[in-house]
């Protein structure tokens, strides 16, 4: 029987591209990126699927490319989800320790975690992640492992990330329709932060911003745990759209201009400079002012950063980001964006690089793949948590099957 348990695949159905990353888990449970497939995405807007047929077609192309490159057969994937509907918030669960000797047992911990997950969500939403931050025993903060401690009151802080169930089910069904299993769904922002941040940076406190085509995800880590997460349904598509509107050019042309002349800040060189737009025959149609182009872009990107900064201020997290801001996603390729982010956040900004993982450098160096690589990383962490010694593959398969049947 072909054992593919050490192959981990991350799949991201993005607005601008569909991307499949294949990783191979080593014996020492490190993970190595061995394959990469991508296809231009045509059926996604602002992170939400609008045309299932096109997405399916693109997905097949991307998967085929990744399979050829990695020389494996892909059976199951970790699916990244995003979209304007995804939100994160902190919640605290409380549980009184009732046993006679006041010793906290593993059951107490399970109960308090369950309480923390019992939150008041809109009916159409479901929880994607509930990430444990830390425990409090009798009001004492910062306990990471309470089992065996004495106390009368156990509390836990969790960060709960939730989103619209239908939208996420759409993505899951679509992937299943292509004969792929979905191991788990993972919030893209969280995946990106897994790929980008080292343990040290998470400890220090860092903000990861993934500027994608249709959405911008942001995640704050501090003290080694996720403190905040969110999505703005604004991304590179909006930049192109703004340019198309402001410069009065078609969208496809705006996209090209963005890539060729775009900048996050209005550069000195652009002042007064114009470029001519030619048609297929090389005849000049009209001229476009580069300064305007860059100003439109700059305003949009600045607004994205501004909205995130505002959100962090509201959550009172700005002072915890000692490792600074990390950028990834296609948007982080825009020249001058680091400077703009530094101006907006007033802290150190690093362009993203998937440093927490090894493998194909061509893949790791590209900020667009951060989220998909993070998905692989997430999968490897999940795999490691499972019992390592699996003498009988069938039993493993069975428990897996149960896992899938049982509700999350």
């Amino acid at each position, binding site marked *: 029987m072909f054992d593919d348990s050490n192959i981990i695949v991350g799949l991201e159905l993005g607005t601008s591209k569909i991307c499949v990353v294949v990783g191979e888990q080593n014996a020492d449970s490190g993970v190595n990126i061995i394959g990469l497939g991508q296809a231009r995405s045509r059926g996604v*807007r*602002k992170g*939400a699927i*609008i045309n299932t047929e096109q997405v399916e077609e693109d997905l097949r192309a991307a998967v085929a490319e990744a399979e050829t490159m990695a020389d494996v057969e892909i059976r199951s994937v970790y699916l990244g989800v995003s979209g*304007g509907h995804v939100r994160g918030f902190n919640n605290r669960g409380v549980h009184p320790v009732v046993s006679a000797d006041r010793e906290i047992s593993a059951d107490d911990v399970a109960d308090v975690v369950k309480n923390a997950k019992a939150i008041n969500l809109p009916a159409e939403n479901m929880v994607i992640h509930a990430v444990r931050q830390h425990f409090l025993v009798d009001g004492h903060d910062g306990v990471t492992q309470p089992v065996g401690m004495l106390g009368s009151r156990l509390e836990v802080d969790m960060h709960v990330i939730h989103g619209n169930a239908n939208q996420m089910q759409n993505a899951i069904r679509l992937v299943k329709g292509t004969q792929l299993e979905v191991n788990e769904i993972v919030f893209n922002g969280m995946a990106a932060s897994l790929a980008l941040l080292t343990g040290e940076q998470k400890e220090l406190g860092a903000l990861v911003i993934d500027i994608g085509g249709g959405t911008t995800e942001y995640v704050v880590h501090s003290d080694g745990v996720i403190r905040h997460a969110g999505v*703005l*349904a*604004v991304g590179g*598509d*909006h930049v192109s*759209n*703004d340019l*198309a*509107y*402001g410069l009065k050019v078609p*969208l496809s042309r705006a996209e090209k201009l963005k890539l060729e002349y775009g900048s996050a800040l209005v550069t000195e060189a652009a002042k007064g400079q114009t470029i001519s737009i030619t048609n297929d025959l090389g005849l000049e149609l009209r001229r476009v*002012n580069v300064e*305007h182009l860059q*100003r*439109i872009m700059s*305003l*949009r990107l*600045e*607004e994205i950063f501004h*909205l995130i900064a505002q959100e962090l201020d509201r959550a009172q997290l700005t002072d915890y980001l000692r490792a600074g801001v990390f950028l990834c996603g296609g948007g982080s390729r825009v020249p001058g964006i680091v400077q703009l982010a530094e101006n907006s956040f007033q802290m150190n900004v690093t362009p993203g690089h998937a440093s927490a993982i090894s493998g194909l450098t061509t893949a790791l160096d590209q900020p667009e793949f951060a989220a998909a690589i993070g998905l692989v990383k997430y999968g490897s962490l999940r795999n490691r948590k499972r019992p390592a010694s699996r003498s009988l593959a069938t039993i493993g398969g069975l428990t897996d099957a149960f896992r899938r049947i049982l509700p999350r």
Partner: protein
Amino acid sequence: MPATPAVKIFGVGNAGVSLLTALTVPEFAAAHLIAVNTEAASLAASAAPMKIQLENKLLRGLGTGGDPDRGRAVAEEQFSTLKSACDGANIVFILAGLGGGAGSGISPVLARAAREAGAVVLAFVTIPFECEGNRREAQAQQSLEQLKAAADGVICLPSQKVFKLIDENTSVCDTFRVIGGLLVEGVRGVWQLLARPGLIQVHFADVCALVRDRHAENGFAFVEAGGPGRAREVVEKLLAHPLLDAGRVLAESDAVLVSLTGGKDLTMAEVNRVMEQIKRQCGHAQIIMGAAIDAAFTNRLCVTVIAAKQNVASKLAVTRTETQGGISTGLSQRDTTVTRGTRTRRAKEKLFQPQLPLAIVSKGRFDKSEPTLHNGEDLDIPTFLRRGVPLN
């Protein structure tokens, strides 16, 4: 000009008289409340300290019977009574429900009388629901035009818009209470602006300069919020307010009056935050603001916004009705020339290319998708448009 202006508040017609009852609170103790109606029964029920019953043989004590012409006729007949009632006032507020006989007929005449008596006239009126029928609507519209011509400013509340504020289960009584409440809040907003000790004082002269001779139709909104995030909340509510058409009214107005009321804990930063947002919405409008302190408002913040809209169409309409003389029956020749003189001067200084209200901004590829709303802003619309950054 006296430090605190003398204010007289007139409630005209059945609706106006009952609205006046809502104002008989200590807050308005300094204002003279005067009820004006043709029906004795409604006046008898009113708590207003001064009542004027307009009566002539034609009415035979039966009221106007929903005919504004009768209302107007009886008001013209007793023009001197109305004028003397307005004597000594610097500001006259007129509260009325348009569409019926008394409110629609008497209000424009009263407004003219008050202006002749030397007061600035602000009218707060409601326009009937669409379901009340064409006739009442037409009467209300006609009366509104006349009132706009006669009064310095008209603050008009189409009842139909109230549907956005109420839910399915609101009773009829409650609905009218909401409408009444809105008008009273409008009066209160202006009143507070003038009467309260202010952090930022609004001078009577400022208000006069804002409303005098504008003959404009105004939009207004009253919002309130409490707690630590009140400044932000107030702005959000204001921009989402149905009576301001989601901020569109602000964008179209050319003069905006903002009255903030807060407790002793009102901070300058909050005032600044609210004003900054309003300013951004208003574009080139002239803004008059006042911030007042009231101990009862501790930990709360109330904002009343009155936006004077003056579009070309209404200006033309006003000029036309006046030159035809159809409604300005009692207007003396001297008065006509004076107002016309000022109007032509105004027209000259306002000679600029009018901008079409192109509120619809194409969202390009996001046209059909669900809008990305954040704090009441649609992020799909290009940032440079929302910020109003010029590209030239």
